[in-house]
């Protein structure tokens, strides 16, 4: 009898459901007219497969660039903001936190429209920077939250000791606080990437039709005739963040998950 380790059951369930879903979408992406009640498709279709995936590459590139920029700019903003909040007086702390939190409270359907009108007004609409800005506004609270939580877990005495040695505030930030926050910043970058990757409404509204990302096409193809192409795009949209997650764990979080939580 083999012992089932309870700890692995959730993991196993997650893996099975993912794997099964991916398999089904793969089958759909290489078949045509896969109507009910066919379990195994009657018509396979490989001619279009290559072009379906090939056509997806520009979409993949756009979505990836936006997400990468969001995660990068996000941590570049979150780290100093976290330091600012950490050191500033109680009075301003709440204000700053609320200022960052507030954009995420606005429903995307509302903020998207507002942002797009603003960008049209300053003649900056329909480009990647506008979309990145919109995604940033909604991811920043989460990224800042992670940065804050790791900063607050640090030992204040380290900072005070360096100050005692004559270091300036900026030096303490760059040479001590930042390195200590590194693991948290990696997580924040990962979170920012994931949030941006999955955005739909904001990109549709702010991108103004000129920035086309994978989720946009996935949603519009969901009830369309070409379910084959739909499945191909779903696969890419699903697998890239999955890959990024696994990579994050293998590369940036080797010591085991949430090591910063152990302090």
């Amino acid at each position, binding site marked *: 009898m083999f012992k089932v380790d309870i700890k692995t059951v959730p993991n196993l369930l997650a893996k099975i459901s993912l794997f099964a879903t991916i398999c089904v979408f793969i089958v759909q992406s290489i078949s045509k007219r896969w109507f009910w009640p066919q379990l195994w498709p009657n018509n396979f279709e490989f001619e279009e497969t290559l072009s379906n995936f090939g056509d997806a590459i520009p979409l993949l590139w756009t979505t990836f660039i936006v997400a990468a920029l969001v995660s990068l700019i996000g941590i570049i903003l979150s780290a100093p903001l976290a330091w600012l909040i950490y050191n500033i007086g109680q009075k301003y702390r709440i204000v700053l936190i609320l200022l960052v939190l507030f954009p995420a409270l606005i*429903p995307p*359907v509302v903020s998207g429209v507002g942002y797009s009108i603003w960008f049209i007004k300053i003649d900056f609409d329909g480009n990647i920077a506008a979309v990145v800005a919109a995604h940033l506004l909604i991811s920043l609270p989460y990224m800042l939250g992670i940065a804050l939580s790791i900063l607050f877990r640090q030992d204040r005495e380290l900072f005070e000791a360096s100050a005692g040695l004559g270091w300036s505030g900026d030096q303490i930030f760059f040479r001590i606080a930042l390195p200590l926050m590194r693991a948290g910043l990696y997580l924040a970058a990962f979170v920012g990437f994931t949030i941006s990757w999955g955005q739909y409404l904001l990109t549709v509204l702010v991108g103004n039709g000129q920035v086309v990302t994978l989720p946009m096409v996935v949603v519009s193809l969901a009830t369309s005739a070409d379910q084959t192409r739909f499945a191909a795009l779903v696969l890419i949209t699903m697998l890239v963040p999955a890959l990024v997650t696994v990579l994050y764990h293998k590369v940036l979080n080797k010591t085991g998950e949430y090591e910063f939580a152990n302090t």
Partner: protein
Amino acid sequence: MANPVTPNMYLSSRFKFVTGGALAVLLIPVFYSLWYVLAQANNAEGFIGNLSRIDAPENANGEFLESFLFTVLLAVISSTVALMAALISSALLVEHSIKNKFKKGVDGTWFEVLVSIPHAVWAAAIFLWLSQSGVLSRISFQLGLVENPADFPTLVRDNNGLGLFIHYLSKEYPFMLLVLTVVLWARYRYLSPVAASLGAGLIYRTRYLAWPILKPAALGVWLVSFSFILHSYEAPALLGSVKPRVLSVLVFELFKDPTIEKRATAALIGVLLLVVTAFASLVGLFLIWKSTRKVADV
């Protein structure tokens, strides 16, 4: 956590200027956006006028209240059920890990993968599995359980939001489980064995030790989940039925129409949604703050 250092001591004015400035620039569209939406909501017949005409046939057509209740209930129920499941699972998982002396706690990689999958895609997957012409239905046919698609139960695109509930449950549960397990593992794993050796049973430990530790995190993730579902558009676009529509879908449809009245109504509903979210967040944040203080007092 007394802070003997004076505030601002480690912040050069240059640092404050640059960081604050960057934030300010980023927030400009937000303030404009707010102003624009408020202005739009005041268009046509003004706030009060629009509010009283919200259910006119050319506006929300009598669907506003239904939509509102449906969305709020969906958010509350999905978040609450997911939270309860996550609370129980995380407590059990952590206890199990402690008992078996796992050094690294629970490996959540695969749950993170689930969480990282976009909602639009996940909704598509759920539709694929659970629709009346989906995979489960086809398997049922092969097994002789159903004869045509209509025999298979309506699980998605139904009037009660079951499909949406399943979607949100399956997405929020891993997310909540991840966060709660991390929090518990960090702060509870030393307390538990000590308490156990002092004679505290599992239930006692869970109720009086684990729960206070989990409470702020639980409130936090519930709030995140609630706000997210309240605002969500992609999943209802794929898994929702013709009626009732989720508020975001209703607002989006109204906004798309170029007539002034419809856009004003859309903006108004958007503002109401924002107010509800802000209110829930304030209450939630207050509760979190209160619960954090209690732990410190203990």
